[in-house]
């Protein structure tokens, strides 16, 4: 039985490796060695990363390792009153390595204590943007080492803390997931032929007509990203993302000294899909006109009664109110009761989750969602 299990395990591993190799081969055709470096360092870590714990027969090994790389290329152009304030173009790659020790039932995750392991470089940070093999392996090597030691240290503290509790959770710490493989062709950023700096200047120039506006900024965000994910369960992803937005903020002071502000924002899935400068100027002009009206409006009185939220306000309201309540994240267990209370109050990691959770949806009522 043990032998059969071992053979089955080997076969599964071979199958996983062949799929993985196919993915890596696809990635290497475009000279991207990221996944290859991730694969090789993960294989080494899975096979040989271990710590011998005193008074224990078995060394501790990670049962799960996860490598994430975010390759981010961002242009940000800021203008005010028709002039360019700044224009930056940056490309960075961020690495995040996590390791879990223990088991799916009880592992090293979701535990906060005051004096955990402090690595000297850490499991996160910037890595080289060349998509090369050797430098990324060097970075993953040290990050995996730090993540593993952090996990061993946290697991020991967590077990010690849980042993003092009368009743422990019967929910597993981590769920097994079917491996996913998705290797998209590497996408080169397309900045199009539009002159973004000139567009930002021209758009922001609208505010010059409103002499009561004290400060204003129009910012163009143009973002291309490639996400990489490799897990020891076999998930392997290289996926492209793109996003663009224009954000215009403006403020003024009412005659009674109350500061008033307003904004205009528009988003697109790609820089090329952003509205042209005339449309942006129109949108900004509306916002400025509304701000001027707001500036001249009488102060609102205290009120209790029915309220009608327009669609754009209702969406924002629901997001603020519903998000924490429907977030499935478990609050972390904490060694410090005060800290635990604070974290529980925050509802854990409260990343926004859409009400219908349709992340695959690309448009809503005729308008494209940003992702």
């Amino acid at each position, binding site marked *: 039985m043990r032998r059969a299990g071992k053979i089955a395990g080997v076969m599964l591993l071979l199958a996983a490796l062949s799929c993985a190799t196919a993915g890596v081969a696809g990635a290497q055709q475009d000279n991207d060695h990221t996944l290859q470096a991730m694969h090789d360092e993960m*294989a080494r870590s899975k*096979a040989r990363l271990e710590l011998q714990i005193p008074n224990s027969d078995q060394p501790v090994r990670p049962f799960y390792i996860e490598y994430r790389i975010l390759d981010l290329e961002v242009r940000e152009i800021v203008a005010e009153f028709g002039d*360019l304030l*700044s224009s930056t173009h940056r490309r960075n790659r961020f690495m995040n390595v996590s390791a879990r020790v223990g088991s799916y039932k009880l592992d090293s995750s979701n535990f906060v204590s005051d004096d955990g392991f*402090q690595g000297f*470089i850490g499991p996160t940070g910037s890595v080289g943007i060349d998509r090369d093999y050797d*430098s990324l392996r*060097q970075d993953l*090597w040290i990050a995996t080492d730090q993540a593993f030691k952090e996990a061993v240290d946290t697991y020991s503290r967590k077990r010690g803390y849980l042993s003092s509790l009368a009743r422990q959770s019967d929910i597993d710490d981590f769920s097994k997931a079917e491996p996913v493989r998705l290797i998209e062709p590497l996408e080169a950023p397309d900045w199009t032929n539009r002159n973004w700096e000139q567009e930002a200047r021209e758009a922001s120039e609208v505010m010059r007509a409103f002499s009561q506006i004290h*400060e204003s900024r129009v910012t163009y965000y143009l973002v291309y990203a490639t996400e990489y994910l490799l897990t020891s369960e076999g998930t392997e992803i290289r996926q492209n993302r793109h996003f663009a937005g224009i954000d215009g903020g403006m403020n003024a002071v009412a005659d009674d000294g109350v500061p008033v502000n307003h904004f205009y924002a528009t988003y697109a899935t790609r820089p090329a899909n952003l509205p042209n400068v005339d449309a942006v100027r129109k949108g900004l002009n509306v916002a400025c006109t509304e701000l001027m009206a707001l500036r001249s409006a009488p102060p609102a009185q205290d009120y209790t009664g029915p309220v009608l939220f327009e669609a754009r306000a209702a969406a924002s309201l629901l997001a603020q109110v519903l998000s924490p309540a429907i977030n499935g994240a478990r609050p972390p267990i904490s060694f410090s009761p005060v800290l635990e209370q604070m974290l529980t109050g925050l509802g854990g990691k409260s990343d926004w989750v859409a009400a219908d959770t349709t992340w695959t949806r690309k448009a809503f009522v005729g308008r494209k969602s940003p992702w």
Partner: protein
Amino acid sequence: MLVGLALPFAPRAQAYPPETQAKPSPLLAALKAELDRSMKTYGTQDPPAYYIGYTVTDTQKVDVQGSNGALLNSSEGRNRWLEVSVRTGSYALDNTHKVGERQMQSDTAVVAVPLDDDPEVLRRAAWLETDKQYRAAEEALIKIKTGKEVKVETAEGKAPDFSKEQPHVSIGPEVSIHVDRTPWEAKVRAYTKAFRESAAIINSIVTFSAQAQNVLQVTSEGEQLQYGLIRYRLELFIQGKAPDGMDIERYSNFDWVDPKDAPDDKAVYASEATLRKEMEGLVKAPLIDPTVGPALLTGRAAAVFFHEVFGHRAEGHRQKDVSEGQTFAKKVGEQILPSFLSIVDDTTMKKLGGEDLLGYYQFDDEGVPAQRVTLVDHGVLKDFEMSRSPLVGFSHSNGHGRRQLGATPVSRQGNLIVQSSKTMSDAQLREKFIQMIKEQGKPYGLLIDDIAGGFTFTGRGQPQAFQVQPLVVYKVFPDGKPDELVRGVDIVGTPLAALTKIVATGDKPEVFNGYCGAESGSVPVAAASPEILISELEVQKKETSTDRPPILPPPAHDTVKTGGQQ
């Protein structure tokens, strides 16, 4: 004009060589126009603004950074910031006055302004910030006047809050840099790749940076300045870990102003080889225990030693502040160093022995021209580094008011140069060092070859002590045994005792260029000194990590074939 009437000095024109005669930026006139308008308004308020200053700093920056053989980032950017300074009250007592141990928050307002030369939008920004700053200064002055009634006035506090200085009109050429980043990208890849050859080096980072900074400054005193400064820098940084968990770092840098002075590959690889050799030695080097005994500091190490131990205590504002230790406040005219040592802070010096000095500038951040200041003459304390915050007996700035963008200037070091009239050759100095070890009956003395930096406590609440962090330390034995590389200690001491224990110096000054952090932020500085022999220096155990070194070897040095392409 109100500003002109209030001025005791007529603006002095600063002459530039004919080939560098420059046109004033159109923004200078815009700033001046808005300044005049502001003074007309705020100069007649109650309390009146008696001083308004506008500074525009335009910075063009190129950064290329690599790590472990790959490019980390490569970027070029430009920004332009406006700083507005408003003082209410009078030169004698204004809104920056420190009452007892309390000082009003007085950080200068700093706002981003357009890169396009648009006088109208710049004036709008200046107008808004002046109003904000005036209101803050008005409120602060009321609190100060009230606070003075309940606090005892110290002798140091009787000095005015702001010195009257000769305003200058100086229009210099605008500077810019044109850097092709591609060759630098290839260089930082290659330089960091070379570090990967050593298994002792866990991480390496190489950074090339270039910066062109143009400053426009106008004040209600009549100052009108336009000047620029260019700087280039290459930094090499590596990290390693000893088996006992101690983190080991080595660092070196090249600074230059003229592109033709950039270090060539040969110089960079030579520096890399030294760093690598030191790292490989240090991770294996034995620890030493705390000890007191003779020590020889190389020029660069001595330069940092003087910067920390003496330089910070010679900064003028520390003699005025009641919460400061005021080590040297009452020692002007007294012997504080051996008579063979003199110290100047000369921010007019561009180079020393062919090396660019980072502490050079034309005007300080309060618009006062750079000056050479003799701080110590043959061991006797003569002067302090002064900003426009005067002391009793030192009523004027000597051009050392400095700050990082957005902070309020205080007196800071620039180019601290240690000079000696009792020099010896390297061989003679070593001979004297060994003789001293024997005379004191010590098993060894310490040769401090490089110092990372350090810190010093100058406040009264702490001991008046300094701590400097040596990076490369050797035991030198009196019996002729080879020097032994050791690790794990910091130099500690108190300034008055430490400075008098210097017994001899070498004959070749060495330069340390770096960035110094203090109340007014990070500013570029240089320090230069010959080797110094100290009869008694104390070292203590340094803070260390106990984290184990990485479990697996670096991928490039792993002989086991698991999962990799080795």
